């Protein structure tokens, strides 16, 4: 059976994928930019809009990192405001489970779901660093092994709160004077190693019964967490084979939780560059890569592997002769990339070999190793590739990450989406009103009144 493709629009992030130097680049903080991207996504009948979160400005070598876009709004506030200027588009965002409490996050998401008439979604993430904790009264941090445990209990606690209202308690019967049929509606009590809370939840059951749950972890724990609890999982597997392996793996984990294949969508994040022809797109992609990795950025990204101050090095020159510094201390804080180099010495050996073989400067090496765009080509080529990956079960769709704010999705919406629609693999109109309906999930979370 031909699968229907799911598409989402990621608001460009505070990293070097986002090209702020482009003449078309607009504000990353003015509301008009969020409206523009969300309305483009809705015009193109996308499933949802996605907004990431970061709770401490990144630092490198002890200074606030200044080469990428810096600054972002509050996730909940922007999503609630976007609900006013969109009708159908899902509104999803990242909210951290380490520096929040379940009661507050649950009331915010239940409120967002009401205010958007059933379009809310929550990407549950965890943090571990004391660096971010310095911005919070709870402070501190979690040992890495407790991250998922807290995230899991945080989410299950929030779900209990959503379920504390069944949805049929409010009578609001003016004649009889009964507003609430059940005087104990919303009562809950939850106790585990992380949370000991009780009382009454303030927000009656929302249209979807709670937000759609998204999860982004790629580790074994992350996959298991998604299989148990999530409605969609983000991934970063761009190729057919890697995508298929990931897809089969996470879908295979669903059965033990009593869930069906279609209960969890696999939605990798993907970048793209379009052109009039494939060759034109390749040329444009090369220009974008050089915009994304300036000489200064190349040095900063190399520092994250080398874990040392390389400011004296020439980005157009060769790699440092010394090896990466391995240790607890890291030059870059407030982001995951340092930790993502799990074996810096081995990676450095690979990079040296590659640089030597192709005679690459630091900048050219970083451009080659730090990830080309996922989809490059003429609209027909990109549409074909996206459809091929979905039909081959490498994914259920993609979360598209434009590299220019806020107009970076326009071309895709105008040229690729119509081709997918012509093929009959992408909706031409919304058939439902809630995000769960867009994603092909049951109309509402279980637990509500029949």
């Amino acid at each position: 059976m031909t699968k229907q493709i799911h598409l989402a629009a990621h608001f460009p992030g505070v990293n070097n994928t986002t090209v702020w130097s482009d003449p078309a680049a607009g504000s990353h903080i003015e509301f008009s930019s969020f409206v523009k991207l969300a309305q483009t996504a809705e015009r193109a009948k996308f499933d949802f809009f996605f907004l990431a979160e970061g709770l401490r400005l990144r630092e490198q070598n002890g200074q606030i990192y200044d080469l990428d876009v810096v600054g972002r709004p509050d996730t909940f506030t922007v999503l609630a405001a976007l609900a006013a200027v969109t009708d159908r588009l899902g509104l999803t965002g990242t909210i951290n489970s380490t520096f929040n409490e379940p009661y507050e996050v649950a009331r915010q998401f239940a409120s967002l779901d009401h205010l958007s008439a059933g379009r809310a979604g929550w990407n549950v993430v965890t943090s571990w660093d004391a660096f971010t904790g310095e911005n919070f009264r709870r402070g501190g941090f979690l040992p890495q092994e407790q991250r998922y445990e807290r995230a899991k209990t945080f989410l299950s606690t929030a779900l209990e709160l959503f379920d504390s209202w069944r949805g049929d308690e409010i009578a609001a019967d003016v004649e009889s004077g009964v507003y609430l049929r059940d005087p104990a509606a919303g009562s809950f009590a939850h106790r585990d190693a992380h949370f000991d809370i009780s009382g009454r939840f303030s927000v009656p059951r929302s249209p979807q019964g709670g937000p759609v749950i998204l999860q982004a972890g790629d580790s074994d724990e992350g996959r298991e967490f998604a299989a148990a609890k999530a409605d969609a999982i983000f991934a970063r597997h761009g190729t057919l084979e890697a995508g298929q392996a990931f897809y089969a793996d996470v879908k295979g984990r669903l059965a033990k939780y009593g869930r069906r294949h279609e209960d969890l969508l696999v939605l990798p994040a993907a970048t793209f560059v379009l052109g009039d022809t494939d060759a034109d797109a390749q040329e444009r992609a090369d220009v974008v890569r050089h915009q994304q990795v300036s000489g200064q950025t190349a040095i900063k990204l190399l520092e994250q592997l080398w874990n040392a101050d390389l400011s004296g090095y020439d980005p157009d020159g060769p790699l440092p002769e010394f090896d990466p510094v391995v240790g607890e201390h890291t030059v870059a804080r407030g982001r995951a990339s340092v930790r993502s180099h799990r074996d810096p010495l081995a990676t450095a050996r690979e990079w040296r070999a590659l640089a030597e073989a192709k005679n690459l400067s630091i900048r050219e090496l970083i451009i080659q190793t730090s990830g080309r765009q996922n989809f490059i080509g003429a609209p027909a080529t990109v549409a074909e590739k996206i459809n091929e990956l979905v039909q081959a079960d490498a994914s259920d769709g993609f979360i598209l990450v434009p590299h220019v704010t806020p107009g970076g999705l326009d071309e895709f919406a105008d040229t690729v989406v119509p081709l997918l629609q012509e093929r009959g693999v992408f909706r031409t109109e919304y058939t439902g009103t809630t995000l769960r309906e867009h994603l092909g999930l049951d109309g509402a979370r279980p637990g509500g009144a029949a």
Partner: protein
Amino acid sequence: MGITSTGPHLAVALDGAGWHPAAWRADGARPQDLLSAGYWVDLVREAEAGALDFVTIEDTLGPGGDRDNPSATGTDQVVGHLDSVLVAARVAPLTRRIGIVPTAVVTHTEPFHLSKAIATLDYVSGGRAGVRVRIAWTEDDSRLFGRRDLGAVRLEDAKQPHLRSPLADLFDETADYVEVLRRLWDSWEDDAEIRDAATGRFIDRDKLHYIDFTGKWFSVKGPSITPRPPQGQPPVVSLAHASIPYRLGARQSDVLIVTPFDKTEAINVLDEVRAEQAVAGRADETLHVFGDIVVFLDETTQAARDRKARLDDLAGREFASDTGVFVGTPAELADQVLDLHAAGLSGFRLRPATIPHDLRAITRGLVPELRSRGAFRSDYEATTLRGLLGLSRPANRYAA
């Protein structure tokens, strides 16, 4: 001062179906819509049609309930409500000029989160955000978060400014919390974003500032993740019934809402607030003191009394309130607020007993009445909430 010559500032306090516990049963009420976005958009647009300064949106951590008019059955009053910051954000893009002031509980929440939420509300509203801060002092509230034991908090200690008490601690903590909000709003200078292609720098990092707040209850490093909001400092509002919360307002608020029952009390409260303001070193700054009034408005005094009596019958008790209650005509209310304004209150927050009836009576009755006396603006004369309140955009405390 311009404020006196142009008459009082006016705000309305939005809460569910209105402030009377039987308001949801009144004519025109929409008790099925209280959790829908359209309801709140309609209310704020109505307030905007009257060119009011701002609306406040009530909020509590728990499901709420009327302390002054407790329900006997637990089934005959509105229970449950939405997060007011998100309601404000949902309404903001659909309104143009009115200030929007959600309520935020500070006792169990993170100042870093609230600071960026209000900064973001300021962006999405184009400079019309404010925030009303409040404490959550009950054990029921504490159990929702399960992180703190506040000790034996007694509301009556609010009258004892010289007594060290758990309640006094909660208000001192709130002052610290507002200090953190304000520092975070200033933690980016206005021109920190430079997009300098020549050097590859998006920001001038020297214009971002660690706030390095360390207090008795928490520490916050900063800077904010959100750039300085359009107003620089969105107005901070607080409600006060006694000395300790007066002191909070004197230290940290731009608008302090007080709850006198008559003119004599209003004058006494004003004296106390102004004295605390001087102690706080803010004697030269504008601190608006608003009077809070519950209003039942009709074309005749008798009609208003009759309507209130019917609502009281439905509720099964006589309406009680923590602040003054006005029952009468818009013209009589105009007399009263102008009298209190002359006594020194710079504005009023009116709590409509029922919605939409009493809200409309404010915007379509009281407002025209005040205008006819030259005591209220005929249209908006500023684009930001600070502007409406006569507050200039403040310099950044960290700017060199």
